[in-house]
């Protein structure tokens, strides 16, 4: 197996991975950076983010407001020292992107424009039409091209971390076009591998979001934190699951049921605001968890609209007018038109909640460090505890930047103090990967199909770990996912070729998703309370006495994972009531 010796390996070349790579190249240009990804950087799912990125910049806004919006939005499960660090770094990072050429929308005087977003008390979302993530990703990718210390390994599929003496010293990966294995020996590893939304059947996530980075760390002994918190975005296209950005509502779009009623007022987010005059932090600008839960209640009451694509509510943007829609929501206009045949200028568009984002991930602290020395993580794959139990829209794009950079700075510090060690034990560790892949190729008695197991996993997650959960349902989910993990050991590789073998990659991805799914189900079963995106029909209240703490899930090979807890860091905002009545009470 060929060896690549480098200083830092980054797994994942989306927003967080690219930001980390650039920070390394700028701050420590002598360190060699290997940036590996299973896709070319421009394909990373950051490109699909639409609405924008939050950072305090306008005179009527303040760090305090952003702090309290984030902590309350997260139902007090955010670590407040982390939120503090984040809100102060956010505007710097967004300005940095501006200097790198990101085409942010502008005010008439040339300053950066901001738009309203859900759960935010002030307008603070920087945006580039409704392709903000796309522009952030391409700006970072293009900027990264000027740094000679960054070597990209595009379409290398990351496999296993290489551990020695308890430290992370690199990883193994497969060059996808040749099928050959490589070992990367490094002083530090940063995982920026994205989320795992594809474990659900109906998701805004691209096909590549299979939790490989999370699973890689989890298998190496790092805990996954707060995995039970899965965000449903309230407005997805009902057939493809494509996201219709929260900016639809930020710009003034309204949600109605089959009676034409703006039903959000019936769920603690009223009273009704005038149509076309969105008010911050109330009605359609409430937080995502509350909006998705309100849909579920409307479904139970029979207030939804039956469509060929299932039960929906309506997102009505007609009153915004053609000009504003074309200027500020061109992608939404195009998506609804081509995939659903609805012209949002003329008609309301049917929508329903769709799995969007994992609040949980590899446990990291505010320095983006995992509990494993030498291993850092950033972006959706990490749980730095910024988002708590429910992420606010437009915080995640900034999270990529702030903690991508932080991971790089932490890695530099770590390497500085590291004493040299010999690399021969790594060779032996890498051999375990070779055996794992070869076993898949050699197995002739495999009798489980990849697509069959994947279907069962998705159906289980949808049925038992959805917007509302119960003890019995979750127990069934835990049992089923555990069973699927066992059956996965007999999965059949049909395609035995070396070159670009997507049958093999999908099997590896399924393994990652099953690991992540197990952490989600086990964490959800253990959390007997309702908080943010984790809602239990049998424990309807938030329980700060027993559950104001993070779930930490540790992998055990054939056994169910071990669940532990970690206290939430509270500095200046004691748990309180989430009020989305728009200060009207």
């Amino acid at each position: 197996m060929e060896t690549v010796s480098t200083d830092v390996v980054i797994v994942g070349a989306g927003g967080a991975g690219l930001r980390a790579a650039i920070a390394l190249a700028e701050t420590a240009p002598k360190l060699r950076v290997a940036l590996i990804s299973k896709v070319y950087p421009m394909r990373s799912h950051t490109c699909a983010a639409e609405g924008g990125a939050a950072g305090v910049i306008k005179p009527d806004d303040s760090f305090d407001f952003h702090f309290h919006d984030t902590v309350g939005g997260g139902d007090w499960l955010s670590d407040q020292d982390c939120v503090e660090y984040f809100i102060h770094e956010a505007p710097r990072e967004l300005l940095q992107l501006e200097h790198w050429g990101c085409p942010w929308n502008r005010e008439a005087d040339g300053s950066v424009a901001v738009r309203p977003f859900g759960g935010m008390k002030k307008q603070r979302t920087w945006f580039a039409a409704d392709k903000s993530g796309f522009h952030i990703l391409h700006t970072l990718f293009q900027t990264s091209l000027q740094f000679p210390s960054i070597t990209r390994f595009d379409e290398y599929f990351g496999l296993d971390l290489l551990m020695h003496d308890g430290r992370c010293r690199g990883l193994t990966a497969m060059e996808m076009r040749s099928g050959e294995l490589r070992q990367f020996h490094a002083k530090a590893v940063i995982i920026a591998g994205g989320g795992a939304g594809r474990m659900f059947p109906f998701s805004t996530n691209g096909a590549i979001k299979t939790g490989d980075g999370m699973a890689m760390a989890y298998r190496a002994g790092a805990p996954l934190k707060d995995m039970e918190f899965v965000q449903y975005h309230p407005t997805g296209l009902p057939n493809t699951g494509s996201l219709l950005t929260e900016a639809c509502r930020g710009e003034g779009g309204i949600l109605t049921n089959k009676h034409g009623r703006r039903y959000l007022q019936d769920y603690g987010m009223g009273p009704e605001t005038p149509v076309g005059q969105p008010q911050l932090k109330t009605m359609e600008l409430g937080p995502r968890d509350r909006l998705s839960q309100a849909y579920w209640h409307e479904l139970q009451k029979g207030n939804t609209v039956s469509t060929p694509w299932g039960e929906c509510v309506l997102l009505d943007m007609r009153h915004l007018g053609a000009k504003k829609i074309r200027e500020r929501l061109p992608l939404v206009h195009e998506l609804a038109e081509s995939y659903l045949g609805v012209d949002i200028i003329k008609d309301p568009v049917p929508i329903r909640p769709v799995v969007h984002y994992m609040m949980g991930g590899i446990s990291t602290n505010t320095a983006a460090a995992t509990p494993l020395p030498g291993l850092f993580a950033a972006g959706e794959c990490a749980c730095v505890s910024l988002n708590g139990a429910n992420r606010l829209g437009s915080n995640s794009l900034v999270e990529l930047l702030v903690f991508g950079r932080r991971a790089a700075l932490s890695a530099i510090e770590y390497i500085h103090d590291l004493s040299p060690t010999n690399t021969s034990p790594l060779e032996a560790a890498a051999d375990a990967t070779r055996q794992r892949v070869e076993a898949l190729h050699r197995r002739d008695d495999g009798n489980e199909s990849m697509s069959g197991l994947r279907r069962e996993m998705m159906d289980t997650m949808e049925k038992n770990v959805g917007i509302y959960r119960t003890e019995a349902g979750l127990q069934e989910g835990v049992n089923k996912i555990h069973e699927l993990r066992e059956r996965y050991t007999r999965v059949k590789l049909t395609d035995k070729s070396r070159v670009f073998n997507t049958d093999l990659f999908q099997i590896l991805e399924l393994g990652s998703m099953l690991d992540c799914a197990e952490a989600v189900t086990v964490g959800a079963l253990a959390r007997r309370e309702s908080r943010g995106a984790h809602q239990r029909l049998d424990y309807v209240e938030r329980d700060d006495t027993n559950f104001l703490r993070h779930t930490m899930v540790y992998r055990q090979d054939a056994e169910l994972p071990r669940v532990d807890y970690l206290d939430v860091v509270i500095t200046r905002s004691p748990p309180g009531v989430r009020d989305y009545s728009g200060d009207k009470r």
Partner: protein
Amino acid sequence: MNAPFPPPPSQEGGDGGSQAMPAPYHDGLPSGRPSGKTMKERLVQLEVLRYNPDTDTEAHFQRYEVMCQEEWVVLDALNKVKESIDPTLNYRWSCHMAVCGSCGMMINGEPKLSCHSFLRDYEGVIRVEPLTHFPVERDLVTAPDDFMEKLKRVKPYVITKQKKPIEAGEYKQTPAQLMKFRQYSMCINCMLCYAACPEYGLTPHFVGPAALTLAHRYNLDSRDEGRRERMEVVATREGVWECTFVGACSEVCPAQVDPASALQQLKIVGSIDWIVEHLLPGGKP
């Protein structure tokens, strides 16, 4: 105190699950559970060019028949083939919303994103081949190395003489200044324009539509001072002067970037630079 919602409906029967949401059935296949109305279905025939360097001396077509919903795209049909008929079929895809640029292929001879090619627009057998003008790795997977190298060569990043500190705040850029280049910043790097460009097919050293357009995008950005550096790559025989203005690039562009117009503007800029440099005394563009 923390539950703003009315009490949940009672849980009777209890099959263990919470009330089911409408759910699609296949991975990556859009299909809400029909309620009342049924979806129109259709048997789709695909003819896919297969090539495996491990076993094949040359490429060959393989025919598949799959039941699809009328509103699906070609990518959905391929996904159904892979899931239910042939796991050895290989292609790239991710976002299913025409923004990641992964799934470019030739569909009935035209460069298209398969996630944005609607079955309703095709009759009869649909022929699917790898993106032309690029070497094939396997099946529909092509090697974009040449494109990646060209992207880098045009220096697609803001170049300034002096670095502005973050503390100095943002560069002011009016909406009019933004609009000058925004269209050219929308390229998703799907490479359809390279597959459509006859010039790139004939002379592979041509820098090509997407990369040149990106150079133009930065040249037009009010924050940038790197035009001169970039023009050393752009205003050359391998650069814009290779373009014969066929305009196929703009026709196939799924992001309405209009590379052809960018290239024509670059030619004008290049000509003016040349005139200033060569014909005006002491001239520097």
